[in-house]
């Protein structure tokens, strides 16, 4: 392969970039998002139920994560922790950091959504004999998810784009791959713009899925 023109280089690079995008960027993003959502729901529920002690721990976690840069968090975990004997491979380290990072933001989203569910829903649940957890899982959380859905979609998009930072801790994902190709052909503008277009395509698909999802969720109408 000896492509000469920029155009030929970009065309040749496209399948490689896309392949890394689909095989690494997307799984990295979805894995991080799913784990982050689990963290967020637990953290939000602890605060909603006002579990003594644990609530303070949750506030501390959110304060710590939201107050420090994602890039610094990646460096601390991947380059810092080995010095105290904690070695994590690049990919799991990235999942771990992205999940805990986005989890803090999504925890606040979920907390707000939980608090927006009418108190009467809980009371009505008690009156038909349901337990606190039954009410949470069957009534309050599903309604909170509906409220939180647009904001959670935002978080997913944010994670997809954020995975490019994993390039800095040696994860061979789409952006890192673009850097590697650029190292050979020196077509910075073309290659990075091409990478940006692929991110844009991914996020467009997610936005489209978000609209589909919102339509489905609105099946049960408004509050009245």
């Amino acid at each position, binding site marked *: 392969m000896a492509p000469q023109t920029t155009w030929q280089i970009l065309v040749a690079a496209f399948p490689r970039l896309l392949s890394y995008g689909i095989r690494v960027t997307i799984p990295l993003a979805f894995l991080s998002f799913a784990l982050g959502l689990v963290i967020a729901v637990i953290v939000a529920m602890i605060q909603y139920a006002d579990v003594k002690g644990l609530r303070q721990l949750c506030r501390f976690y959110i304060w710590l994560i939201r107050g420090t840069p994602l890039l610094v968090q990646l460096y601390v975990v991947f380059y810092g922790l080995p010095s105290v004997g904690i070695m994590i491979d690049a990919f799991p380290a990235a999942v771990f950091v992205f999940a805990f990072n986005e989890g803090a933001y999504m925890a606040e989203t979920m907390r707000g959504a939980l608090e927006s569910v*009418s108190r009467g829903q809980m*009371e009505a649940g008690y009156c*038909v*004999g*349901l337990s606190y957890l039954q009410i949470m899982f*069957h009534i309050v959380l599903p309604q909170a998810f509906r409220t939180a859905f647009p904001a959670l979609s935002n978080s997913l998009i944010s994670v997809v784009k954020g995975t490019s930072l994993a390039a800095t801790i040696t994860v061979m994902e789409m952006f890192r791959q673009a850097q590697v190709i650029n190292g050979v052909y020196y077509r910075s503008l073309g290659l990075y713009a091409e990478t940006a277009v692929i991110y844009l395509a991914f996020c467009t698909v997610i936005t489209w899925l978000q609209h589909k999802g919102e339509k489905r969720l609105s099946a049960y109408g408004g509050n009245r």
Partner: protein
Amino acid sequence: MMLDIRNVHKSFDGKEILKGIDLQVNKGDVVAILGPSGSGKTTFLRCLNFLETADKGVMTFDGDEIDLAEASKTQIAAVRKKTAFVFQNYNLFLNKTVLQNVTLGLTLARKFPKDQARDIAVKALERVGMADRLDAYPGQLSGGQQQRVAIARGLAQSPEIIYFDEPTSALDPELIGEVLSVMRQLAEEGMTMLVVTHEMDFARNVSSKVLFMEGGYVIESGTSKEFFEHPKEARSREFIRTILEGRQ
């Protein structure tokens, strides 16, 4: 006597809302709890189902004596199992269909098999005239329809008593009738009911007893015939007169 409530006290932020309320209810009684806004009617009703915790008070339900201020989880669960509560704002589960609203308590709390729960639910919904909207969500129903589903949700629990907290106050005037007629029908079938209401016609014609409250006290209680025809207290007479005048 089915339900004997003595000396219920409740304060919010140092302000005493209930100052010792007593009430006796026999099976089949329909008790209208009347009084001006802020008299503590709703708080009293909520204390009976532990939606609020009373500061003081004793309830004897079917012979079981329960301290309203210090009821155990088991006692609360036992009371809630024998009662149903209809809210002013219906409080239907917004993410559940009409049918699911009625079956949820049966399948989750009472562990009925699904098909049996469905049969019970459909029967309850037939009694309130909502069996043709099983798959609708609350958001697709009018206020009156929602309130009738809420009543069916209560009926499905086969309660010994149903508490109604201003069941028609949030409704548009033209929708009040459909809910009141369901309640009247229940009363005629012998359902025991405690109804906080501003509907004087209902209190007068359907309820058997009246509890008239003001400022956290019971001002007068007795049969509704006595209360409306020969009120003993000056305050009761004034209340009845104001309400009747207000309608003209």
